[in-house]
């Protein structure tokens, strides 16, 4: 799924670039989040020139270009304008070299500018492009924001994911995506989930059909995208399957390179799933805040057991002592017997 692309126009809009030249060329496509800073290319070395990347020119490059002979500079710039080159960006409010403007005309490449320094605009563009161009995976499930936590509800078809989501929305939580959740990895520890454009704000409930959550419950009931913090996996109740009774399971699911905590909740009539999922989310949150109820309970239990064990041995030794004393007393005073 690497055939994703972003248009230069979208980049301009989202990273606050201005257009020096080529407003009509903004529909060119960017296919990689890498950004090139042509330095050696200016000297004529083009062996590893990454033509498909955004070309970013800063103070060093523009001032070097100023010192070059016009003809030579135009020749180099022309070489940099390849059919797959998406755009040129000039940082720090610098003026683009005239030769560049002349050179881009053949391939119809826009020349953009930014007020930010080279490193700032570089990181802004990289962040934006990485989010947009990251590999995406479709997951069958429902993504809901519960008290600010992104909870992905998974499970077999017909187990009641959408119905549970509806109840959660009624309880004041927000829907991100129903049925198909698009996830991508933002960084090493962050997984972001969102709805495919066509399914945004929609929920499909068997017997009712498609409902528009924003229409029915207001703008507060939906959210564009969120980090995926927790997975709740719904399964049909089975008598023999061992379920996590104490909450010390520590089960993860790996999506891309991110490990996401997963709880498996058995579904049975009479179990209010919305409340269960809400509690699971809160429990996860307290655990992340440093309070592990299972560990605390285990400590308390251990103390109780120790206290009980001491009592037991103390009682038996006391009983034995009494018996011994009785025996001695009887030996001394045989008339006490009977």
């Amino acid at each position, binding site marked *: 799924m690497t055939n994703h692309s972003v248009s230069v126009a979208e980049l301009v809009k989202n990273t606050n670039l201005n257009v020096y030249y080529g407003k009509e060329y903004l529909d060119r496509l960017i296919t990689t989040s890498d950004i090139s800073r042509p330095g050696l290319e200016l000297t004529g070395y083009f062996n590893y020139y990454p033509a498909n990347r955004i070309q970013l020119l800063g103070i060093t490059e523009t001032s070097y270009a100023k010192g070059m002979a016009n003809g030579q500079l135009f020749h180099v710039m022309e070489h940099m304008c390849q059919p797959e080159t998406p755009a040129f960006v000039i940082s720090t409010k610098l003026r683009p070299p005239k030769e560049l403007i002349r050179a881009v005309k053949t391939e119809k490449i826009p020349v953009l500018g930014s007020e930010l320094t080279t490193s700032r605009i570089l990181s802004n563009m990289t962040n934006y492009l990485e989010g947009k161009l990251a590999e995406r995976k479709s997951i069958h499930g429902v993504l809901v924001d519960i008290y600010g936590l992104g909870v992905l509800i998974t499970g077999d078809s017909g187990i009641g994911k959408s119905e549970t989501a509806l109840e959660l929305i009624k309880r004041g939580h927000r829907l991100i995506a129903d049925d198909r959740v698009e996830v991508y990895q933002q960084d090493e520890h962050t997984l972001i989930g969102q709805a495919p454009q066509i399914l945004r704000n929609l929920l499909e409930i068997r017997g009712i059909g498609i409902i528009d959550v924003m229409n029915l419950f207001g703008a507060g009931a939906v959210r564009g995208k969120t980090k995926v913090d927790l997975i709740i996996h719904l399964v049909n109740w089975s008598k023999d399957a061992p379920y996590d009774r104490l909450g010390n399971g520590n089960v993860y699911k790996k999506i891309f390179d991110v490990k996401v905590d997963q709880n498996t909740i058995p579904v049975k009539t009479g179990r209010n799933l919305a409340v269960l999922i809400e509690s699971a989310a809160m429990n996860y949150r307290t655990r992340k805040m440093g309070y592990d109820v299972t560990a605390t309970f285990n400590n308390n239990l251990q103390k*109780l057991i120790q206290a009980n*064990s001491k009592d*037991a041995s103390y009682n038996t030794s006391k009983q034995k002592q009494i018996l011994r004393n009785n025996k001695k007393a009887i030996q001394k005073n045989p008339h006490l017997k009977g």
Partner: protein
Amino acid sequence: MVKRQFKIISEAGIHARPATLLVQTATKYNSKVTLEYQGKSVDLKSIMGVMSLGVGHNAKIVINANGDDEKDALNAVSETMEKEGLSK
């Protein structure tokens, strides 16, 4: 109804892990299974109930089973007790 007495030989008593296993074993049967300790009786299918007793080392407990598969239930629980080193 069938019952059997056990003496807990494990130093750690019935802590979280063995409690979970006992409950898992008992849950497999239809019979009502209870654990008695110091005059208190709890359902052996309820994990919080079992753990709340804090059964310690040298404690004497009684397991009761009542129902159509009571014998199997009691045997299975006994087996788990031995396997987990809770009693002989």
